[in-house]
């Protein structure tokens, strides 16, 4: 069942229900009213009858009384019966054909005024009105009024009302339907017109329906269609222009985007509050943050430095920046004020990492070249010094053997000692100069070499109380290397560790490897190396133990030896906790 049918069904049910209730209410109302009216009339009629009969009753003129009662009943058909009782209680007269009913005896004795009782007889309901026949004298006058008469008229009226109502509703319904068709047809036309317009048929026109409101509406609608058609053409032309402009704008935007994306610098546009509006691909690469994540954030959060958007910075500010991928990059940041609607400011990020590294390398190269020149000079000087020192030493030892004077001997021994120190220093300088010059290639067991180095160092520095932890085993970590050179490396590092721990501590040595390299970890629990010194400890002549006869060449030599093996040395240190030296050596190498 469709919705409208349901609605109609419900409406009809409601209408019928309401109609029946209405009919019931009206029926009751009319019945009550007519009954009341009938009783009022009955009272009047009974009193009138009594008035007309008083003299006859007092005169005991029964024939006249009978005539009056018959006349009364003929005049009023709703009167079912009449009976009179005299003041002595005797029945004077009644109109019952079959005789006076027993049940009516003493049934409705009137008081001083009228008395009404409802009696249900086998001929229907009767309202019996009784009154004193002659006031003051007595007797009774009873008149029965039939309800059937009332109901007959009421029912007739109700049926007429129902039929007439149904007739009116029917006629009204048909009239409404016809009227609705008359009204709805032009509206349907209008609806069709609207549908055609919605489909784009602006040249559609609707029929004009007479000169009434609908006629005016149709005319106005057609006028509106004409205007709409004209406006539509104008709009179409404007749209075409707009499309062309949009296409060129799109191309321009694409071009601009490609330029921006292909630029080698990161470009970030900002609102005047410093909020990021756009972010090109290069900026993503440099900062390690995606465009989608960056837009909407403040630029200070991304670059982690304060950016003042007050004046342009055309020169640029160099900063070291650790991006979100963990890479350290050097950036030059330019600030440029924009005039476009995209934002007030632009930040240009230029990657100068390569440039900085190149500068550093150039500086190092210059320094190495200088050191190389110095080294060669030193080797020559050392060689020149070493020969006379050897002569001095030999001559002094001969003098010591022949000398008897004790004080002289002491002086000679002091000379020998100082000369030996000089020779040792000269030898170190020569070693540094010679590193990488002549590297042997032998298969060696790193573990054994380390054990030898530990034994040597323990012999040299026997004054401490150190624990040594060894986490390696023999025969597992084999490399092709120069044993003398590597021993020099390990001894240097282990001695430095002992010195760092001073008189007690734990020296831990681990060896690990992979397919290509062997890693030796030498850790101490010493004083550690300050951060500012870490990158300098491998520089020649750098030492923190000046005045102890230390030239500061040990770690430089060790680094030079390891690099000569194509290896590397790393240092991790914390002041007060200790240091770990990691020596990375290739399993085999070609020189």
């Amino acid at each position, binding site marked *: 069942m469709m919705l409208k049918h349901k609605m109609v069904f419900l409406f009809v049910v*409601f209408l019928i229900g309401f109609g029946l209730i209405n009919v019931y209410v009206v029926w009751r109302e009319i019945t009550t009213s007519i009954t009341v009216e009938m009783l009022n009339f009955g009272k009047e009629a009974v009193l009138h009858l009594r008035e007309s009969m*008083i003299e006859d009753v007092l005169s005991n003129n029964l024939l006249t009384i009978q005539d009056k009662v018959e006349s009364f009943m003929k005049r009023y058909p709703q009167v079912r019966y009449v009976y009179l009782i005299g003041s002595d209680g005797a*029945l004077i007269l009644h109109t019952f054909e*079959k005789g006076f*009913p027993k049940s009516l005896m003493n*049934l409705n004795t009137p008081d001083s005024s009228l008395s009404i009782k409802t009696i249900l007889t*086998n001929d229907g309901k009767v309202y019996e009105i009784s009154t004193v026949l*002659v006031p*003051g004298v*007595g007797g009774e006058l009873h008149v029965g009024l039939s309800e059937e008469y009332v109901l007959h008229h009421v029912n007739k009226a109700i049926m007429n009302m129902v039929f007439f109502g149904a007739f009116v509703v029917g006629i009204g319904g048909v009239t409404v339907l016809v009227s609705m068709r008359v009204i709805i047809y032009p509206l349907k036309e209008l609806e069709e017109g609207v549908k055609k317009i919605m489909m784009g048929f602006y040249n559609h026109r609707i029929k004009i329906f007479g000169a009434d409101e609908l006629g005016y509406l149709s005319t106005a609608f057609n006028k509106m269609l004409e205007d709409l058609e004209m406006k539509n053409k104008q709009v179409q032309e404007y749209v075409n222009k707009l499309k062309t402009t949009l296409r060129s704008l799109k191309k321009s935007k694409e071009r601009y985007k490609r330029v921006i994306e292909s630029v080698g610098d990161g470009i970030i546009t900002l609102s005047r509050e410093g909020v990021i509006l756009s972010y090109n691909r290069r900026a993503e690469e440099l900062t390690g943050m995606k465009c989608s994540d960056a837009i909407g954030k403040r630029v200070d959060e991304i670059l982690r430095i304060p950016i003042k958007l007050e004046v342009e910075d055309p020169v640029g500010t160099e900063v070291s920046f650790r991006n979100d991928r963990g890479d350290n990059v050097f950036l030059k940041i330019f600030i440029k004020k924009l005039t476009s609607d995209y934002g007030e400011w632009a930040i240009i990020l230029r990657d100068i990492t390569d440039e900085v590294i190149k500068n550093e390398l150039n500086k190092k190269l210059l320094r190495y070249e200088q050191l190389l020149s110095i080294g060669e000079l030193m080797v020559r000087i050392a060689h020149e010094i070493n020969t006379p020192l050897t002569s001095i030493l030999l001559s002094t030892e001969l003098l010591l053997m022949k000398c008897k004077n004790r004080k002289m001997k002491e002086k000679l021994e002091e000379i020998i000692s100082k000369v030996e120190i000089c020779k040792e220093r000269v030898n170190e300088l020569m070693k540094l100069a010679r590193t990488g010059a002549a590297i042997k290639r032998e298969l060696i067991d790193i573990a054994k070499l380390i054990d030898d180095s530990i034994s040597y160092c323990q012999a040299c520095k026997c004054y401490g109380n150190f624990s040594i932890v060894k986490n390696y085993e023999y025969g597992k970590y084999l490399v092709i290397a120069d044993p003398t050179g590597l021993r020099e490396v390990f001894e240097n590092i282990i001695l430095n560790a002992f010195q760092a721990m001073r008189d007690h501590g734990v020296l831990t040595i681990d060896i690990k490897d992979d397919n290509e390299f062997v890693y030796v970890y030498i850790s101490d629990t010493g004083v550690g190396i300050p951060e500012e010194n870490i990158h300098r400890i491998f520089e020649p002549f750098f030492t923190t133990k000046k005045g102890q006869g230390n030239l500061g060449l040990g770690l430089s030599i060790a680094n030079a030896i390891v690099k000569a093996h194509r290896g590397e040395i790393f240092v991790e240190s914390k002041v007060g906790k200790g240091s770990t030296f990691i020596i990375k050596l290739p399993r085999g190498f070609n020189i």
Partner: protein
Amino acid sequence: MNMLWREYLVICVMILSLIGISFYLYPIERLDSIQVDLNDVVTTSVKLNNSREDVVYFSFDLRLSPKAEIEIYAPLMDYLSAKVGKQFRIKFAQTYEEVQYMLGTGEVSFAAIGPVNYVVTQKKYGNVIPIVIGLDSNKSPVYRAAIITRPDSNIMTLEDIKNRSFAFGSFYSTQGHLIPRIMLERAGVKLEDLERYAFLGSHQACAQAVISGLFDAGGVQDTLAFHLESKGLVRIVALSEPYPRSMIVANKNIEPELIEKVKSALLELDPLGKDANLTDWDKTEFSGGFKEVNQEFYRMYFELVGKYIMGEFS
């Protein structure tokens, strides 16, 4: 259907509510009526309503029409019933003789009668006593009779009535017969001097007979004569001297307590004041109420009645 069940429910509730309200406002009539079988009839003659023993019957001289008299005395019955505590009913009498009979035989206990009828009844039965006398609107216990003629009549004095026709009221009427007879005789007009005469039964009938020209003159109560003269229907030829008015008498065989109660109730009656709602009370001989009276007050009537009323017909 599932989606609309609430709406259907609402509509059903609305219709049921309407039906409920309708039946609440217009309930189906409960028939607490009395069931009567009209076919079950009485086969023998029976009295439907037995007379009550405690009913006190009252009668009166018919001075106006029966209906008019009933209309006047029915309220008095209600008054007495309320005051005395017994039901008072009228026993209607068509004639003065009937009143005499009912009073004399005890069929009625009380009656409103004129002096002539009282004297006749007393002389016949000897068992009636006057208990109160009527007063006029001036509280006077006397009244007069009037001889009336038509306004255009050439009867100017009582003597002019000689050889003319004359109408009396009732034979036993004081104002309608006895006093006019006395007036005529004192003017030298005897019944034999009249062209013709008749007793028409009531003052009203007598007045109508004069007005209509059936009789040249007539004797009626003074109040009616004044009333008709004021309307221009009659002319009063002569007025009598005052005579004691009508009274309420009782059969002296009934309980004295009842007589006393009735007397008290009548003396309390104030038609000019609190009981002014009594219908047409001004048309009675008691328009001003009642006053206590005894038999002595009417002694003058005994001789007159003997001479003019009972002497003629006894």
